[in-house]
């Protein structure tokens, strides 16, 4: 047994991560750490160091509120896979294979992930993705995308159908790949990195930029005050309210419920307009900065937000009551796109996509950051794993977020003054930072060299785990139910492709 146990966004020396031979590394993670109660893999990645590929595996344990980090260094060679024993490692290993050419001997689905610009095999092309095929006279294929019928990001969905029924769905992504992780190393001004973090996924600006800010502050041994922590928590919960409301609107659109679509849609507007009042940007770009804030959460803002939440809640409850008692909407929501608890656990879904299947995964409760410890956050759970569960979960989480914000405003600490001294990251260090965005756990990892410069930056959006959940959930559904199933997951393309 050789690993180091760290807390959420705790910086440790890189040399503190035990290095194991590959067989022991596999044994430790696959047969021990991941099998413990409350364990899930938050990141598993490789980077080049001294001519070898250094593999780092981070298994979070929700019971002990810690993250178990271990590593191994291997040359480019054929290796036995983790995924043969546990599917939660499936996509991480595909990524390692795609980036470094490690040929896993027994991986069940060793396919490209995103065709990054720095892939090991530059000859592989996104247009030649090896789709799963069935040789059958009864079945037919339906290809959708990469460009979809709407204002939405690109990705390709390949269905194998029996008549109208989906037998199999394979989701091919990578179209949105912008090389964000490499840019984190190349663009070395702090403001450039902040800007990168808030442009990873424009619907999770607060989530991703908080993950970066926590990580950077920890690397620089900077302590933030209570006001900033509370303001950041309010921002994260407001982002959750905004996107959940917008998603409820979009879900109404997909089942042709016009009133719900219009009312939820217009209810989102004042939430994002509040961000504009606070920080000058409707999606909160510019709000989160490591070690400081240009936009203190003033008394006036607090009063304005309290008043707005009262108004919002009345209208929100009215339309929610209508939606959830409307037979024509419920008929489309219930038992559509089911992901069972067993499936969710087997593939390691996170966040909303886990909680709707009865899997209690919520970083706010298990690895609390900012003001969540004081809030004593209890995750909302649903058990059916269908579109209805995802809709109800959003409704309940909005109510919970409103309560969290009201509580925080009551106990709001006075704004601190931050000095403008530049922060300097510690040399030869490692840090893993987890934030519960509205989709689920966002994970950022950083490694610095002897001068404190970044030598590796690794980002994992919750969508990285959850896309496979969508592919499994639509099996045996009618293909006409795919749009509502897809919208109810609302996964990120750019967050996956980075």
């Amino acid at each position: 047994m050789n690993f180091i146990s760290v807390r959420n966004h705790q910086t440790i020396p890189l040399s503190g991560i035990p290095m194991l031979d590959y067989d022991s590394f596999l044994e430790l993670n696959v047969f021990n750490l991941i099998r413990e109660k409350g364990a899930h893999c938050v990141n598993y990645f490789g980077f080049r160091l001294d001519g070898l590929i250094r593999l780092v595996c981070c298994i979070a344990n929700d019971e002990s509120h810690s993250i178990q980090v271990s590593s191994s260094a291997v040359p480019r060679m054929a290796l036995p896979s983790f995924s043969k024993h546990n599917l939660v490692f499936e996509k991480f290993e595909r990524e390692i294979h795609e980036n470094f050419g490690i040929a896993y001997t027994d991986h069940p689905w060793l396919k490209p992930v995103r065709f990054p610009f720095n892939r090991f095999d530059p000859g592989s092309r996104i247009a030649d993705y090896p789709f799963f095929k069935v040789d059958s006279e009864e079945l037919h294929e339906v290809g959708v995308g990469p460009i979809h019928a709407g204002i939405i990001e690109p990705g390709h969905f390949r269905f194998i159908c029996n008549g109208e029924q989906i037998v199999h769905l394979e989701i091919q992504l990578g179209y949105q790949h912008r090389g964000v992780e490499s840019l984190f190393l190349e663009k070395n001004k702090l403001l450039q990195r902040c800007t990168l973090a808030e442009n990873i996924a424009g619907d999770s600006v607060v989530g991703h930029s908080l993950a970066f800010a926590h990580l950077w502050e920890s690397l620089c041994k900077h302590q933030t005050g209570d006001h900033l922590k509370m303001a950041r928590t309010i921002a994260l919960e407001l982002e959750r309210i905004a996107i959940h409301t917008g998603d409820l609107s979009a879900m109404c659109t997909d089942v042709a419920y016009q009133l719900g679509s219009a009312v939820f849609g217009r209810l989102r507007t004042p939430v994002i307009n509040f961000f504009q009042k606070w920080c000058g940007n409707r999606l909160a770009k510019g709000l989160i900065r490591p070690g400081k804030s240009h936009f203190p959460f003033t008394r006036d803002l607090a009063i304005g937000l309290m008043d707005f939440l009262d108004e919002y809640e009345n209208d929100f409850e009215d339309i929610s009551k209508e939606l959830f008692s409307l037979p024509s909407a419920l008929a489309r929501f219930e038992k559509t796109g089911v992901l069972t608890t067993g499936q969710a656990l087997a593939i390691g879904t996170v966040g909303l996509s886990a909680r709707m299947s009865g899997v209690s995964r919520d970083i706010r409760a298990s690895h609390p950051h900012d003001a969540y410890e004081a809030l004593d956050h209890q995750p909302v759970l649903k058990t059916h794993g269908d579109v209805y569960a995802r809709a109800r979960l959003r409704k309940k989480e909005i109510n919970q977020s409103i309560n969290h914000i009201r509580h925080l405003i009551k106990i709001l600490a006075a704004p601190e003054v931050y000095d403008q001294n530049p922060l300097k990251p510690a040399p030869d260090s490692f840090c893993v930072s987890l934030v519960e965005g509205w989709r689920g756990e966002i994970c950022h990892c950083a490694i610095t060299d002897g001068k404190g410069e970044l030598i590796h930056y690794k980002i994992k959006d919750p969508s990285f785990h959850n896309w496979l959940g969508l592919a499994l959930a639509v099996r045996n559904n009618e293909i006409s139910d795919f749009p509502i199933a897809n919208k109810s997951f609302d996964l990120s393309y750019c967050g996956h492709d980075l």
Partner: protein
Amino acid sequence: MLDNLKILIHQGRQYIPDVTRAIVPGIFRGRPVISEVDVKEKELAELCPTNAISLNPLSIDLGKCTFCGECAFAFPDKISFTTDYMLATNDRNRLIVKSGQEHPIKLDPVLVRKEIHGYFGSSLKLRQVSAGGDNSCELELNACGNVNFDMGRFGIEFVASPRHADGLVITGPITANMASPLQICYDAIPEPKIIILAGTDAISGGIFEGSPALDRSFISKYNIDLYVPGNPIHPLTFINGVLDLIKKQET
């Protein structure tokens, strides 16, 4: 039924009556104004995350600017952002705001192709392609059609198929992996057609500028009919820009 009516009445009027004169709430960062005050200009230019600030004379390129406002925080006497959201233009050079410039950003009527008003003046159908967009401009383009901004009242709508479209709206810095699908989509739109770049990422690559994962050759191949700056674009910036493009031009 009665509950539905109650909800409808309770919503009141949500639409913005006049999108050309609406006032944005709060501290929106729109068109910047650069004063003539003496400051350490090199230090100021160095600050910008996307190299949007140039020297001699000091200017901000809104095609590169992410509107983070950091320059205005560091040099409040030199740079201030107004709430003017009328930022769209069809001339790339007009996006560069120079020191002392106070006048608003407008389209150059001479550059607007003659057929645009005739064909699209009262009906414009657009096909949107996200090519590495981070979903923020996409959210705001969707918002253009919601009950608040209601762009549909001007006959401007997003459509599902390029075959039904009169033009292309591109968001994102254009990834290499999207270069080919984008080209196929453009080719499928019948002539005459327009191209709109929505957001800083689409106009210049934004913070992703210089990334080897991009392929921006599409942009240099075609005439761009409208640049809409913003990170993300504000719905009012987009709607007003498009309205100015399709109106009867006075030349």
